[in-house]
């Protein structure tokens, strides 16, 4: 095929246009968790400075409002977190101490994912005897691809609001991400069909949204109540559930202790499985796509184990 002058001209014009687009401002993005650092990377582009306050090895409920995080937040243009009180033990202190007026409220540079999607497990009635229950519902929303798709849209709106001159770039990134994510979601749904209806025991309500997406059913929790570590008497009651309901799988995250799950594995023919939970949770999970693929393929693999 020959390229004629018209086509050449169009190519040159496109190239020029692309280079003439305003250079992306170096937005400083402070993400509370690795999954939101990954989402910000997809949408804000490579030029943004993205910092994750926690790693996959850290329980986001128990982070310290460390000096290093205060100075990071001081320079943030955008703070993106799960919200729904997940970070209540440290985020308000960082906001207060950072002296950064741009990230104090969601009207400005603060983005709380849970504000933008429907949350599961919103309790009808809350008191502390129920454990560390979140009044605003389960904050671990990043494990449902449908919610992630809508979070991508909402977060792009936030980026556009804060950095109008680069709106076109953010819209383009969103369109690109949404397309790839939609295709991947359809693929995951198909691939995960064998998991439908599968019963599972988990540590905390960390995977609730993943189970909802996959049509799986969490029938037991290693924690007696949210936030309380497993006790031996509680584990015995989980053991009963496992035996009565023929549960084949117990899962936990990269920041939770394997002991309780392993104990259950020793007592029954259940498979104990550490899932990545977030980006960086295992070697293969380098972004949101590979993280979801890992979850599904690891769960499928466990079906074959027994």
């Amino acid at each position, binding site marked *: 095929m020959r390229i004629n002058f018209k086509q050449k001209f169009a190519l040159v014009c496109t190239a020029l246009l692309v280079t003439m687009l305003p250079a992306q401002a170096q937005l400083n993005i402070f993400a509370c968790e690795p999954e939101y650092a990954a989402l910000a990377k997809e949408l804000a582009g490579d030029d943004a400075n993205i910092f994750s306050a926690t*790693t996959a*090895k850290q329980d986001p*409920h128990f982070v*310290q409002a*460390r*000096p*290093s995080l205060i100075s990071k937040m001081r320079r943030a243009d955008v703070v993106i977190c799960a919200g729904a009180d997940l970070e209540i033990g440290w985020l308000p202190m960082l906001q207060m101490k*950072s002296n950064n*007026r741009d990230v104090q409220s969601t009207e400005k540079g603060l983005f709380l994912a849970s504000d933008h999607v429907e949350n599961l497990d919103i309790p009808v009635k809350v008191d502390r005897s129920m454990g560390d229950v979140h009044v605003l519902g389960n904050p671990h929303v990043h494990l449902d691809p449908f919610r992630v798709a809508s979070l991508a849209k909402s977060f792009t709106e936030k980026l556009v609001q804060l950095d109008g001159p680069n709106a076109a770039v953010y819209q383009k990134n969103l369109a690109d991400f949404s397309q790839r994510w939609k295709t991947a979601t359809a693929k995951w749904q198909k691939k995960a069909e064998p998991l439908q209806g599968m019963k599972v025991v988990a540590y905390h309500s960390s995977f609730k949204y993943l189970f909802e997406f996959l049509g799986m059913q969490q029938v037991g929790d290693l924690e007696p109540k949210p936030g309380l570590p497993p006790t031996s008497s509680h584990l015995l009651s989980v053991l009963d559930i496992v035996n009565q309901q023929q549960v084949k799988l117990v899962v936990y995250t990269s920041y939770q*202790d394997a002991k309780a799950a392993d104990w259950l594995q020793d007592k029954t023919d259940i498979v104990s499985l550490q899932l990545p939970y977030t980006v960086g949770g295992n070697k293969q999970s380098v972004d949101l796509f590979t993280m979801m693929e890992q979850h599904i393929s690891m769960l499928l693999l466990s079906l074959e184990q027994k």
Partner: protein
Amino acid sequence: MKLSKLTTAVVLGVAAAQTHAATDDINVSAIINVGYTEREDFQGIAGYGVDDHAAGLKNGFWTDHTEIAISAPIDDMFFGKVTMVLDEHDGETEVELEEAFIQTTAMPYDLSFRAGRFLSNVGYLNGKHAHTDSFADRPLVYRAFMNGHYYDDGARLSWLAPTETYIELGTEVFKGATMPAYSDGEGVGAHSLFVKTGGDFNESHSWQLGASYIGFKNDEEYCSSHDHGEEDHEPHALEDEHGEAFGACDFSGDKDYYIVDATWKWAPNGNYKYQNFALSAEYFIVEEKGELHHEEEHEEHINVFDEEHHDEIDVEHTGFYVSGVYQFSPNWAAGLRYSEIDFDEPYSDGFKPKVSTAMMEYRHSHFSTIRLQYSQDKSVEHFTDDQVTLQFNMALGAHGAHQF
């Protein structure tokens, strides 16, 4: 009577707050801090004048520093907090307004301004609420020099440097009317300067260093011995070996504090849930320049009379504490602390008060702590007090975020 009125006010306040809770971010919390302590009566700290707050825990059952706090963003510019503390002294419940401040959240140039009544940010422990401590009482050096903690009416300006490493500079001015300050309360009776810096060595290790100065202009005439009526109880000071004893309010002049503090925290991979260790230390230099009031007993013929003296003094005391706390499971933690003071003459002629403390605590959840603590207290010469405390420290309502 005083209390019941306040209780009603608090209940109404809480009820009013709750009706808004769904829409506004009003945090209401209460800390219940109760326990039982087996110890001898407090006999002072060497010959250094301190008031009842410096005594630490009371003998027998106690409710100490039970607090109620309400905080919320006021608008997009201001945040506000009120903390009331209930303490029991000599059978009377006393209500102290420990905090009532507003703080800016939207000042330009990385500045932050606070005004009202609040805890001074000098040192490491002073700016923290006692219920977040890892021990049932404050270290000896804090009890002697800071009356447990120094809070007052005043204003603070702080600035965060635009650096990768955290550096905060701040200055405060206070009325100077709550212990250890005692000035006329008209104008500025205390002022401070502090710098705090910190960072991470790596994923598992973090650190913080601080250097602070706080100066008080004290005048014995205006000493009100903390907020509660000083006429009820004598300031404590044990007659020491050379017969000298000074009350909490016997000094007039300049009192300058220089404090350095260092903290190191460790958690495997930075995951604080299962295991972590915190080591912190503070060192105090206290300079007193002025006059010390004391009475000397004289006998002339058959008359015995007290003669008042005002001695010029220029002295320097030092003191420190070191504490290490290891949380070895989500439920259990244990800690050790040592605190010692080296008083200059005329408060002491070489005796150094010291307290060694060990504690073990069980946390059922993030909100409840049961702590068993043992202290070997050598605050006064020739006497060792073995103190055993069982403490219940529990939080109701909103979880407040904690400082590093």
